[in-house]
């Protein structure tokens, strides 16, 4: 599946300063693997040592958070738009 991936500012350096890149895959894992082969180090920034998405990274498919879909297994269709956004978080401690 050919998809469009919207890249947040903090990761744009990894993809040649692009805001949007084209990628492909049948699900989110495949897309991340393809992005990592095109832009080495990309996946590492989004995932923890267990290969799960870092808790402060939000990934959306067509505006829905994949936490509410099938997470990394979320199936994709041609033309889907994937948005990656760092969470907005913090605290007083």
């Amino acid at each position: 599946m050919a998809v469009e991936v919207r890249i947040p500012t903090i990761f744009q350096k990894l993809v040649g300063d692009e805001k949007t890149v084209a990628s492909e895959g049948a699900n989110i894992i495949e897309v991340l693997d393809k992005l990592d082969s095109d832009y080495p180090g990309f996946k590492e920034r989004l995932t923890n040592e267990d290969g799960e998405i870092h808790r402060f990274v939000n990934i959306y498919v067509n505006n829905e958070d994949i936490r509410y879909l099938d997470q990394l297994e979320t199936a994709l269709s041609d033309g889907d738009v994937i948005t990656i956004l760092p969470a907005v978080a913090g605290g007083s401690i």
Partner: protein
Amino acid sequence: MALHIKDSDQQAVFEHSRSGYPHEACGLFGGNEGFVKTFYPMTNVAASGTVYLLDSREQLEVMQAMDDAGEDLIGIYHSHVASEAFPSPTDIKQAFYPDSAYVIVSLDDMEKPDMRAFMIVDGKIGVEEIKVIEGE
């Protein structure tokens, strides 16, 4: 670049902070070139007095609304309910928006909240001046 905010927006932020107490309150500022055009109050899904986390769906919706309005994300605000308006180690570690000011409102004195702004880039804190503009 200083962060310019209208007096009415600053008061709305203070009120939002107070109404969220005892939890931390949070929100986003859309605008351009350091001038806040729109204050977006947000939900703290952590519902905590020491931690804040934006609802991921609401975050995307508001960021898209900013895009549609031609605004940039120029400020991320949250309250500290009982400590000074200065980034905590957690704030620094979780600062993923280097282009946005991090605005902290201290409710240490509930009657006179203290608002300060910072840029947090690569773990380093820079103080950002806040200029309050008179009017609505």
